């Protein structure tokens, strides 16, 4: 009896986790991929590990520490590249490694037990708490409202910031809010996919979506769908095979991407062959 309740809760948690992860990653990922911010997002992810380490050291929730570090590093890259004239990719690279270094130092300085580093680096559904699921669900609602209400404004600013600046004084406000929300999305998904792999959760689904459509909001919808299929499948496989969930999800997503791309190309080749055989017949 107890086992079945445990299993039931575990499945619900996994299902909700998959739904919320794919919604948040689909919305944030489409923005990140369209605006070519993948490297920046990778930097934010790894820098936030510093917050996880400090969180452990101070005995506060590591996700909270990670959120602070994630947002600060996103704004820090902007500050270093615009105000201090450091090349943006160098600034990202520095904060990326600096965050990881801080995280490792503080985790090893933490007295008593050493927390399970692996679960943060590669993700583990076992360590996902109900609070994590609630946080991810809240984030889904926030992102849906934010992108739903401000869709066109966000789209136009992200497409052509220089032009937007000529008519709107809200460009910087939107940029900072969006970047902060993306940092939060990344941090909240770290529990699922892990620091090392979470960036793929944001980047692979939009790339699958772009095989079907080039319209922004349709990319979001397809991304969420592709993300859910990949996440849920990866979750099930990871459960039965006993392998880390983050790695399984990313592996599944890449397989989906390759399969879809391959199928589309195959259809292209076949229809070309049909056309050319048609051509030969009509010539006869």
């Amino acid at each position: 009896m107890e086992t079945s309740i445990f299993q039931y809760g575990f499945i619900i948690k996994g299902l909700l986790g998959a739904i919320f992860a794919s919604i948040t990653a689909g919305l944030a990922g489409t923005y990140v991929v369209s605006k070519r911010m993948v490297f920046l997002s990778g930097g934010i992810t790894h820098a936030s590990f510093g917050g996880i380490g400090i969180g452990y050291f101070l005995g506060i929730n590591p996700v909270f520490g990670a959120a602070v570090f994630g947002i600060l590093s996103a704004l820090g890259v902007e500050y270093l590249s615009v105000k201090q004239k450091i090349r943006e990719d160098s600034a990202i690279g520095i904060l990326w490694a600096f965050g990881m270094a801080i995280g490792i130092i503080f985790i090893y300085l933490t007295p008593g037990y050493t927390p399970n580093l692996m679960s943060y680096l590669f993700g583990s559904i076992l360590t996902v708490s109900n609070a994590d699921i609630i946080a991810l669900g809240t984030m889904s609602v926030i992102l849906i409202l934010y992108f739903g209400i401000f869709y066109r404004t966000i789209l136009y600013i992200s497409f052509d910031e220089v032009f937007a600046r000529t008519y709107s004084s809200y460009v910087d406000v939107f940029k900072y809010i969006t970047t902060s929300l993306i940092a939060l999305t990344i941090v909240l998904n770290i529990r699922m996919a892990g620091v090392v792999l979470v960036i793929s959760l944001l980047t692979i689904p939009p790339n699958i979506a772009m095989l079907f459509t080039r319209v922004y909001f349709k990319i979001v919808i397809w991304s969420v769908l592709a993300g859910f299929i990949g996440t849920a499948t990866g979750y099930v496989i990871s459960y039965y095979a006993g392998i880390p969930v983050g790695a399984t999800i990313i592996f599944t997503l890449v397989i989906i991407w390759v399969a879809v791309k391959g199928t589309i190309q195959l259809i292209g080749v076949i229809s070309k062959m049909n056309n050319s055989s048609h051509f030969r017949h009509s010539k006869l």
Partner: protein
Amino acid sequence: MAYLFEMHSLSASYGANVALHDVNFRVNENDFIGVIGPNGGGKTTLLRVILGLLKPAAGDLVFNKDLLDGNKIGYLPQMSTGDINYPVTVRDIILSGLMIRKGIISRMSASDKIKANKVIEELGLVGMSKSTLNELSGGQMQRVFLGRAIIGDPKLLLLDEPGNFVDTTFENDFYEKLKDLNGRMAILMVSHDVGTISSHIKSFACINRSLHYHPSNEITNEDLLAYGCPIQLVTHGDVPHTVLKYHK
């Protein structure tokens, strides 16, 4: 003729770097002015000041409030500002010329859609409204950005180096289109390439930190001296061309 804006002894700078010095300049209704000058001569700065992106360090910029406020300026930036691989359709880019001015929540109304369709038709982009930029030619892309600039029915159209991404076959079409638009709006076009200053402009100004306005479209030796170095003008294409005087 009614003026749209006037600059009085206007200077603008980036830190210690003075980009415009003591500029007196007036643009009237239905003007078609070409502004030429070398790279770094202050052409883009001039546009930034007009657009309100850069505050003058000294002097005044006075708009004729009856005819022109910030919303009534159309702007065609240099090609490089938008990412051509961005997943946004031609129709949405053109609409952004209206939407971005509406404040933080920009909802599309039925009249916005009608305006967009009109612009798409006027610029010969019918059938491409659902395409993304990477599916278009350079000339078509430029028409999309022109559409974004004119959808708000501006009284003044600012063009930044429009010659940069036009192939010569399209260039004539483009200037013909500008000539049509000039019937309902003043046009101010900056370029480092004298070749793009076509015969359609009515007057021109030379800019190299300071600005010299010439009420005709004939370029003289003195104008070319604004470049600060001896240059020779070479251009291809059909006659008529603006003929330039000899210079030593």
